[in-house]
């Protein structure tokens, strides 16, 4: 008890990691050098720390690392295929859907979960899903447009 080894898949790689029971998922992923995941509000409100745990978006700041035992974890670093960016990443650049960029990894990972669950969302669905991701720079219009653009892009690529 107290310390244990867990086995998980982070992005495309299998990992064995020794953690303590109180270790948070954000501490685990950032400890692996995956620092795209950001700590901000530390209370599940802002979404900057969003990762996908077993396909579901979670606040890694308030999720215990032991929850990832035996499960896949996807972080912002897992979206691009080598140097080829994910359509969401391309769309965020194209729409200039960020300014300081601190919220962007969480925005994109959250949007990835949205498009996985609802490949063809309407504006209302995007807004409702993304309302838990806070951006203090841009306003949200370009973010919503980027998500819709990416959905279009992914649809035409199918």
């Amino acid at each position, binding site marked *: *008890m*107290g310390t244990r080894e867990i086995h998980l898949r982070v992005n495309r790689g299998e990992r064995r990691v020794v953690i*303590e*029971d*109180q270790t*948070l998922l954000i*501490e685990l992923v950032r400890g692996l050098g995956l620092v795209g995941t950001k700590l901000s509000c*530390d*209370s*599940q*409100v802002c*979404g900057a720390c*969003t990762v996908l*745990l077993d396909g*579901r*978006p*979670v*606040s890694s700041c*308030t*999720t*215990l690392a*032991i929850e990832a035992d035996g499960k896949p974890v996807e972080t912002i670093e897992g979206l691009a295929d080598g140097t080829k960016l994910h359509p969401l990443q391309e769309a965020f650049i194209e729409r200039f859907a960020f300014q300081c960029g601190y919220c962007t990894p969480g925005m994109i990972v*959250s949007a990835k*979960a*949205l498009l996985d669950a609802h490949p063809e969302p309407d504006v209302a669905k995007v807004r*409702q*899903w993304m*309302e*838990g*991701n806070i951006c203090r720079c841009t306003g949200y219009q370009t973010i919503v447009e980027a998500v819709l653009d990416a959905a279009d892009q992914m649809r035409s690529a199918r």
Partner: protein
Amino acid sequence: MLRRFDVHRVTSVAEAVALRQRFGEDAAIYAGGTELLLAMKMGVARWPHLIDVKPIGSLAQISASTDTLRIGATATHWDIERNPLVAEALPALAQLEANVANVRVRAAGTLAGNLAFGEPHADPPSMLIALGARVLLEGRAGSRSVAVAEFITGMYETALAADEVIVAIEIPLPGKNVRAAYVKFQILERPSVGVAALGTVRDGRFVGAPTVVVGAVDEMARPVPTAQFAGADARDAGTLEAIADAARAAVEPIADLAGSVEFKRHLVGVITQRACAALAAEAL
């Protein structure tokens, strides 16, 4: 960062109850962690032991019989909002669950945990109380069932005994002609006010009295005395205003970041009218 604690993963309710007895006040039940870990991080609560009940497979189940919907204690808001049995039997609950907090909290947080925390600024209690839902508990002495209205006893206070574990929430399904509605107003992460209404409207009139429960503004959800509205004209502005008056009188709002006492009392009236109007609007 969290202070050190041990997580005990249990695979049966009996094991969870045994650990509750063994550790007493030093342990908390852990499922979604969305409220628990937050409280521990903020330093307002500390437990050296967490009893993880998620490995108990049976607790994740959602099932329906002809007259009851049963939601297992580890079913998350995400599970409930997507469950076809819930969508079919109680669409108003599915809709409520689809708008709890944010998508990440819904993905991890459980309905049972929401009740167990007794957080006053919550969506589900008002609806569950209006529906007459019950909490199924298992403890050293066996199992018992407590109405949600009696389970939540105050701010962050519940009737959960030190050796007990929530097993499921049981919701009696309303009759075919009964409509349910939940309307909320929210500017922050939690509802400023949420009103659940339940009732039947036929030929524009309430059949019997509607059930109205106001949540999130008070120490706990408050039922509104509505007996006088039995048979009232459900589409009449005067009726809705009178129910709103009764709702405003039934609550003792607490001022916080979401607003002053006066503002919240005003909101209670407006949102109560909308919830009751929704019953009439959806009536056949």
